[in-house]
């Protein structure tokens, strides 16, 4: 088994290397000259030259590339263009906020989605099942930002039940939770639809599989079959979907964070990109990708634990 994981790790690492190469190549394609951006138009050519020399921008490209990688290995991701503060610590400090949002969001969606999926199989082909089918298909179509704006409109502006913006004050747990409600809901709507459908489909498949038929005919009670046999086999597709989704959310809750004015990795990256603050953007992207890859590895580990067929190959 270790060998299997060793191989997978290598492949994923190579993907990471590929991504990082890609990102850094992008950085070099940046139009515009950092020196010009930092200094104003009025600076004289000599001052510009001096800054370029200081930033090491006048060295040949290959040397710059090498220097760049050297710095990264030492944790030096560069500095904010304007403020001069080091980039990496700031980027990393944004991660926990996104982490909370993504994790709460996914767990919430998973819970509700599974419950609804199990219910719809239990009442398969009844009106309830059909209604749920329509609802989840609709929910699927409500993308993050659409949900966010809609929820904000209804529950914040119109009804004033929940705060629209911000994350709540430092010590105020209740306030922080209240600030989480709408963002998490916005994230979850499409996930709940998606998960409900997956759960229902997998359960439907497993319910008519040979081994369930066998178990039934040997007198094993229905509830036990659903929980022990069907669910266990249903875990695999679910795990992949959920964990990789979580990983994607870690880097990409861009819209939610922007709309609800929350701190987080997504928003950081977007602001950096729009403000052309490339070192920040680059560092942010790399952190996001690393987190995603960790999530993918996690998904594979869980899959292998749950499904012995993978483990023992």
């Amino acid at each position, binding site marked *: 088994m270790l060998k299997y994981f060793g191989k997978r790790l290598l492949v994923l690492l190579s993907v990471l290397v*590929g991504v990082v190469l890609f990102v850094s190549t992008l950085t070099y394609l940046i139009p515009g000259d950092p020196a010009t951006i930092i200094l104003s138009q009025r600076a004289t050519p000599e001052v510009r030259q001096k800054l370029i020399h200081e930033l090491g921008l006048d060295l040949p490209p290959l040397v710059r590339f090498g220097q760049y990688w050297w710095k990264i290995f030492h944790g030096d991701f560069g500095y904010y263009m304007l403020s001069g503060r080091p980039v990496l610590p700031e980027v990393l400090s944004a991660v926990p906020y996104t982490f909370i949002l993504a994790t709460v969001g996914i767990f919430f969606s998973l819970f509700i989605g599974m419950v609804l999926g199990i219910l719809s199989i239990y009442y398969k082909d009844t009106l309830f099942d059909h209604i749920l089918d329509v609802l989840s298909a609709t929910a699927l*179509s409500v*993308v993050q930002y659409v949900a966010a*704006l809609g929820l904000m409109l209804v529950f914040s502006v119109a009804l004033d039940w929940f705060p629209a913006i911000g994350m709540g004050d430092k010590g105020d747990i209740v306030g922080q939770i209240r600030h989480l409600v709408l963002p998490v809901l916005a994230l979850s709507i499409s996930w709940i639809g998606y998960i409900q459908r997956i759960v229902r489909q997998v359960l439907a498949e497993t319910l008519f599989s040979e081994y369930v038929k066998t178990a039934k005919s040997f007198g094993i009670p229905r509830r036990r079959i659903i929980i022990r046999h069907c669910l266990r086999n249903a875990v695999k597709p679910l795990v992949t979907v959920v964990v990789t989704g979580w990983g994607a959310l870690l*880097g990409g809750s861009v819209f939610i964070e922007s709309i609800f004015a929350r701190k987080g990795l997504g928003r950081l*990256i977007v602001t950096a990109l729009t403000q052309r603050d490339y070192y920040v953007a680059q560092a942010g992207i790399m952190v996001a*990708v690393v987190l995603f890859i960790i999530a993918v590895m996690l998904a594979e580990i869980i899959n292998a634990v749950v499904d012995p067929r993978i483990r023992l190959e």
Partner: protein
Amino acid sequence: MGYGNTLQNALKNLGLRAFHKIRKQKWVIAKIVRNPSAMVGAFIVALMIISAVFAPWIAPHDPLKTDIEHRFEGPSAHYLLGTDELGRDTLARIIYGARTTVPIIFGVVVLGAAIGVLLGILAGYYSGTFLDKLLLWIFDVISTFPGIILVLALVAIFGSSDLVLTLILAFWRIPSYGRISRTEILSIKNETYVKAAEALGARRWRIILSHMLPNSLPPIIVLGGMDLGVVVMSIAGLSYLGLGMQPPKPSWGGMLSIGYTYIRQSPWLIIWGCVTLVIIMIGCSLFSGGLRASLKPEESLSE
């Protein structure tokens, strides 16, 4: 015995097969007609396309014409869905929004599918070789980026003109098509009819074009249908962030962004923006579901 000759024959073959498939279309279309949700989906997609093509004839007002006195109005007899922050007619802007968005999404899907499928076929046909592994690795790299981030980064660098947007989004979608077509090719590769063709000495090209490709199309078409919706959402999202369609071009995402800014003045922009996007997404889902049901009847869970 020219290479050109073989290619000619292969294309003729492909054409013949396409002709037969189109004759089968009646059957496919009949299946869609029998399926109510697919009909709804098809209707919505058709509506979107019609709005895009016939916008100048359908829209009740000029989407760019401002009417400051009547800004932020709700639905009225004159402005059916209300007006935006500059008094422009919302309905007209929604219809013209289709006109700006639709060409891009079709461009993205066609381009992304074409390149993705081509690469996927290569990967599948030469599976196990270095080429296959390389292609898969490329697919992995592209898809390991959280989608928004990838697109955002590329837009920030390359700008957001229509052409650039199309290229970037197509680039983003390539891995999905690549993987699916690779999987299809892998399973088709071992089918008897392929082996028979090989045994008869048919050249690789021919086999790929006339046998493997047509038979692997169904899931790709289904994915394409779904992708229409996904790409619409991405474009709208980009426009929301200011990185997609630039004002004053009418765009759905832009409408949402303005709606957000002026949320206290008028809820209507957000309402209509959200409604439009949700309807389009539902339409594309239903449509692609209908395509799946009619192209692969064994997989639809009817009765």
